């Protein structure tokens, strides 16, 4: 049987190639999309990491600044570029480390990298790194540190400077044989001319075409930007705010032993006025202290000249209270209203609201009676006269301080009017003098010789210093010559080549003026300090006229992201 078998033909389909083709195309598409996505992802990842690094760096800086703001101190930082903080950002794992470069010197320093940073500043450089270490960014900030506690070279309630300059120097560092103009350049102290005011409102510091090579402190609660006014030609260093006012204490004029004073108190005596009086009484204690009670006021006078007088309030006038010294002529009204007081060579006069008393060198007391109607005037109108105790005559009016005109020298003691209009008046070494009125005019000179030291002058009435080199301190050191002025009249100092003085004048405005006028030392007043065409060199050897603490902790000067 023959069977026929069909030859099986191989089948040819296109499905498989087609599927392969489609798969191939899809593979390319997927590959392309994957490549694009990977590239985009890489770009995005880099961008995110870069941002994470930067934000970590900024976080480190923020932490360091917050720490300093809170504690005024970068924890245990010595300021030589050490790492003061390091940390980790919890959410991203990024790390930061903060390096500190602190300049505690008085001159700029150069930190690694070549940047110069000024005195009293700190440079914080924070580096942020991502957890993968792939990205690093840095952020840096330069902060000005607070001034801390500083010695003040010139203190006044108002400081006005026109065409003038403030510097600082250290007289102890001047060469012994230095004779040049100004101070020995080697003694200059950079940026240490600290001037201060207790005022915290208005513009107590005004600089016009002036230069302050140092710092300015304004009163507690003040705003440095508001209280300091300067024109475009004026420059100043750091400006801070006092944590508390710098008090200028009242000047306590010392009691000096006079040549004819044995030091013994007057012989006690019971004093009674020679005439009868119905409105005044006198009494004297065993130490010589005399008490005079008027119808209105009470006056106590001690043998050393100290006196105290008080009176109750009358009408709308407040109570009166004053203290002083008959010998020095210094007195201060302390009450709600003032007594009329005059201390003259031959009389001591007090006027209250309605009644007064006059104690004269002729040994009499003149007192106005109850019928007197002249207010605030001593012993005017009808007066009653009494004989004063003998010790008043002997103890007070027989020791009238002498007046001096162009004396060759001044030694310790009390003086009335001292006028120096020509020649040189030498100050005796280690002396203290109390002068009622001191006037040095053009041509005259108050001179502290080169080997002089420790001279203190108290001026209780008026102080006038005019003329170039009116005060010549040949020691070139302000601590050697101090002037304390208790009066209220304006003090004008024309200065000169060697006016090395420490001047306290709490109740008097001070003016340094004159073309090229230069003043070296320290100044303090509760009134105004004015400089016109002058230079003031604060001598740090004086240790200033007070100590002030800057409440400003820091100020950001510059911030850079690198």
């Amino acid at each position, binding site marked *: 049987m023959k069977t026929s078998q069909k030859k099986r033909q191989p089948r040819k389909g296109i499905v498989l190639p*087609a599927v392969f083709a489609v798969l191939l195309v899809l593979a390319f598409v997927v590959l392309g999309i994957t490549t694009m996505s990977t590239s985009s992802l890489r770009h995005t990842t880099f961008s995110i990491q870069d941002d994470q690094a930067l934000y970590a760096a900024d976080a480190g800086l923020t932490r360091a600044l917050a720490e300093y703001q809170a504690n005024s101190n970068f924890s245990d930082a010595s300021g030589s570029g050490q790492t003061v903080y390091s940390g980790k950002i919890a959410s991203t794992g990024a790390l930061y480390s903060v390096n500190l470069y602190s300049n505690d010197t008085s001159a700029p320093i150069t930190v690694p990298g070549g940047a110069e940073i000024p005195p009293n500043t700190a440079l914080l450089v924070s580096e942020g790194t991502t957890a993968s270490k792939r990205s690093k960014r840095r952020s840096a900030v330069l902060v000005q540190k607070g001034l801390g506690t500083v010695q003040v070279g010139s203190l006044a309630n108002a400081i006005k400077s026109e065409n003038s300059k403030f510097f600082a120097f250290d007289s102890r560092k001047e060469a012994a044989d230095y004779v040049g103009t100004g101070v020995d350049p080697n003694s200059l102290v950079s940026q240490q001319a600290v001037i201060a005011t207790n005022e915290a409102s208005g513009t107590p510091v005004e600089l016009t075409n002036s230069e302050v090579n140092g710092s300015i402190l304004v009163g507690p609660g003040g705003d440095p930007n508001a209280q300091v006014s300067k024109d475009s030609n004026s420059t100043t260093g750091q400006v801070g705010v006092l944590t508390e006012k710098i008090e200028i204490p009242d000047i306590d004029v010392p009691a000096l032993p006079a040549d004819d004073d044995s030091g013994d108190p007057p012989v006690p005596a019971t004093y009674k006025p020679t005439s009868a009086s119905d409105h005044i009484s006198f009494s004297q204690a065993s130490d010589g202290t005399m008490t005079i009670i008027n119808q209105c006021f009470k006056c106590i006078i001690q043998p050393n000249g100290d006196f105290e007088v008080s009176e109750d309030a009358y009408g709308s006038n407040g109570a009166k209270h004053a203290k002083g010294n008959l010998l020095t002529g210094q007195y201060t009204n302390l009450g709600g209203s003032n007594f009329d007081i005059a201390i003259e060579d031959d009389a001591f006069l007090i006027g209250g609201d309605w009644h007064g008393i006059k104690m004269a060198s002729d040994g009499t007391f003149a007192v106005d009676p109850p019928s007197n109607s002249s207010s605030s005037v001593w012993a005017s109108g009808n007066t009653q006269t009494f004989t004063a105790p003998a010790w008043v005559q002997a103890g007070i009016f027989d020791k009238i301080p002498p007046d001096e005109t162009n004396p060759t020298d001044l030694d310790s003691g009390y003086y009335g009017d001292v006028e120096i209009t020509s020649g040189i008046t030498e100050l005796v070494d280690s002396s203290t003098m109390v002068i009622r009125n001191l006037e040095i005019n053009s041509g005259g000179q108050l001179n502290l010789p080169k080997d002089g030291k420790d001279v203190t002058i108290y001026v209780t009435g008026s102080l006038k210093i005019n003329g170039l080199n009116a005060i010549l301190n040949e020691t070139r050191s302000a601590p050697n010559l101090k002037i304390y002025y208790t009066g209220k009249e304006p003090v004008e100092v024309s200065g000169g080549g060697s006016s090395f003085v420490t001047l306290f004048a709490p109740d008097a405005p001070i003016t340094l003026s004159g073309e090229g006028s230069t003043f070296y030392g320290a100044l303090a007043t509760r009134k105004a300090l004015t400089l016109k065409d002058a230079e003031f060199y604060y001598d740090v050897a004086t240790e200033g006229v007070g100590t002030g603490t800057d409440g400003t902790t820091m100020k950001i000067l510059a911030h850079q992201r690198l």
Partner: protein
Amino acid sequence: MEVLIVAVLLFSLLSLVTNFLVKGKRMTVKTEALSSLQREATKLSRALGRDLARACGDRYQWGTEGIIFLSTKSTDSAQPTLEFDSATGMVLWKKWVAYSLDSETQTVRRYTQDLAGPTPDQFAPPSAWDLADLAGLPVNEGKTVANNILEFVPTGKADSQSMEFRIVAVGRVPLGNMAEKDKELRVEIKTMLRLGSVAP
């Protein structure tokens, strides 16, 4: 019969794949275009951010033409990265930087002009350019920062440490279909850029 069935199936499959590929391509092109625009906006944002980190909020001028500011970064790499005035601690300016927007080509170019030397703020010279000058700056002297930028302007939201910019990038997507016009795409970003230096 079998062949017919296979042919129909294959045709359907190919149509499906073709349609998928065409749609996919359109999506890819659109996504790529959007991505490109965003990349351009981001490039400008990052470049501006880097430069403004060396600038000061009080020392710039801006308009629709661009922005001009002082920078503390020197073009001379030999100079220190950071420099301060040794007396005041304020930054020392090194150059003027301008970002200029060419509205015709929608290109942002960056120009710089060095100062004579590191200069304290109080002695900084007047701006190297005015805003009106930006359009006339030689194209070949500028460095192209970003393309397809319609505008970049501060929004006015700012503090002493940062300022917000709005950057708008626009572009057209060729859709590959004769019947359809190119589609315009627009990417707008708002970003806070941090400023570096502190105003004196």
